[in-house]
């Protein structure tokens, strides 16, 4: 076929196919807004300023997102907002209950038409300030009584070590949050992420917040192309693993380019600096949009079989290499996501007994996110939940990477049961947990010191 200017028809049809058949889309454009200047000595006044600033800054976000999506023919699925950790914003008020601020965020998000607003957060890896303490006090209530607010707590960094007191408390808080939302499958917990080495510019929920080093306002992009990568891998059943890595890399380049284009255009039209493209491969429950299925297409009978960690290492690395070339600024989490409830292949793997929590934990050592959107029995003790978090934090701390836990202990459910969260949060099979007790270790509390990796100077 002749060349149209500088594109071949094959290239043009490839782009069309990626969007229309393979589920290529921009998963999210997330507007980061600093609320540092909204903090006052009066919680009421702070709430007023927060509402004003968010509704003003994000007023055009949804409309511009729609415009750009239509102009480029690439769907922008979600428009979201990330704010300064509320621990910081609410602290000068001296209040120990920051639920009013959560409600304000919820109302502001609704007013501008975004489906999630992240940042009801605290960074406690070294210890607590009054504001951090207030966030902890307010968490279960805030998550149970708001729709769109997402919370995150950073409990460890490579530089600071692990705050085991915070981790122990979170075990309790997660259970409390699940109890308060027991009638909805414990859904409050689906809006709470516990981090080690949390990034300041992650555009994905529920862990998004606008970090202290960020500017007044910034636009970050999260793309999504598991379907595209899956199709590419399936087309090459005979390629050796080296060639497969190159194929994935080239595909990741193309997918990320769309994020770069959309990011630049949306931020230009909003008059806001362009932050980063997060390269993460984020699955959905749409047909073929599964990271687990990519691993299976690489050659595993079922995700979770031996070989899964190696396959995921290949995938994650190839995605990063392709994506890095595609964007001027790469950031956020940038890796492969393995959220159980949002990936049909993961759900199948757990249901068939191929994928265990232990294997998931191993996988988090080589990919970006962590133990995400997974359900455990409602009677799992708080110390066990804390210990799951501690294990995940240790992986992140030692390997100088981000890890996270988003666990939902579902009241009344046992291993093998299925819980429906609905909508974007999907459905999850309740997983078996090792119930030998870590209580004595968790009771010790204290801080696990920063590892020698921290001494990098």
């Amino acid at each position: 076929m002749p060349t149209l200017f500088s594109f071949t028809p094959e290239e043009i049809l490839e782009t069309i196919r990626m969007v229309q058949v393979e589920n290529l889309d921009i998963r999210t454009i997330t507007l980061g807004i600093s609320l540092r200047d909204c903090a006052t000595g009066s919680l009421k006044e702070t709430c007023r300023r927060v509402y004003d600033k968010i509704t003003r800054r994000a007023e055009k976000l949804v409309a511009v997102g729609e415009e750009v999506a239509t102009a480029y023919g690439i769907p922008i699925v979600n428009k979201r907002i990330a704010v300064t950790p509320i621990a910081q914003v609410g602290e000068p008020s001296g209040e120990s209950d920051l639920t009013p601020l959560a409600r304000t965020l919820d109302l502001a998000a609704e007013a501008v038409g975004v489906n999630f607003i992240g940042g009801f957060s605290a960074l406690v890896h070294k210890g607590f300030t009054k504001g951090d303490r207030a966030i902890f006090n307010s968490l279960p209530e805030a998550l149970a009584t708001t729709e769109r607010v997402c919370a995150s707590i950073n409990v460890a960094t490579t530089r600071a070590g692990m705050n085991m007191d915070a981790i122990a408390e979170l075990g309790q808080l997660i259970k409390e949050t699940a109890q308060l939302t027991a009638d909805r499958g414990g859904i409050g917990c689906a809006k709470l992420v516990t981090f080690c080495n949390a990034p300041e510019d992650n555009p994905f929920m529920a862990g998004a917040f606008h970090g202290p080093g960020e500017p007044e306002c910034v636009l970050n992009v999260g793309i999504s192309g598991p379907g595209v990568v899956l199709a590419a891998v399936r087309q090459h059943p005979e390629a050796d693993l080296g060639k497969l890595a190159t194929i994935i890399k080239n595909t990741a380049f193309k997918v990320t380019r769309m994020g770069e284009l959309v990011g630049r255009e949306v931020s230009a039209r909003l008059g806001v600096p362009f932050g980063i493209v997060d390269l993460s491969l984020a699955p959905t429950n749409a047909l073929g949009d599964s990271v687990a299925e990519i691993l299976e297409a690489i050659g595993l009978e079922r995700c979770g079989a031996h070989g899964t960690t190696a396959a995921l290492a290949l995938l994650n690395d190839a995605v990063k290499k392709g994506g890095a070339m595609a964007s001027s600024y790469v950031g956020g989490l940038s890796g492969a996501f393995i959220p159980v409830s949002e990936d049909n292949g993961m759900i199948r793997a757990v249901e068939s007994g191929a994928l265990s929590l232990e294997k998931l934990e191993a996988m988090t050592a080589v990919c970006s996110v962590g133990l995400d959107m997974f359900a455990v029995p409602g009677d799992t003790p708080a110390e066990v939940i804390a210990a799951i978090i501690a294990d995940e934090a240790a992986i992140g701390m030692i390997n100088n990477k981000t890890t996270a836990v988003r666990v939902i202990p579902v009241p009344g459910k046992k291993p093998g049961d299925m819980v429906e969260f609905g909508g974007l949060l999907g459905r999850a099979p309740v997983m078996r947990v090792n119930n030998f007790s870590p209580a004595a270790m968790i009771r010790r509390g204290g801080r696990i010191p920063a590892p020698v990796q921290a001494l990098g100077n």
Partner: protein
Amino acid sequence: MTVADGRAIITVLGQDRVGILAGITAVLATANVNILDISQTILQEFFTMIMIVDLKGSNLDFFDLQKQLKARGEELGVQVTMQQAEVFKFMHRI
């Protein structure tokens, strides 16, 4: 907001029948849009057409033109997509 300048790529996909090219180009002619290049194949009965157009002289804004093309496509039984050319430039070139 108007985006009616620069180049766009129109793709037409569907079952081959008489009048597709005429139907689409009629919309473009009325809108005063210049066609810079056309490529077309018919594979078995499947029809694929790609056009690069220049929207600079267009008397319709991007979104109105897009709507009209989509509607014409529905009449003709084909799927018509119009996208800013940047999409393809960004994806396929470094």
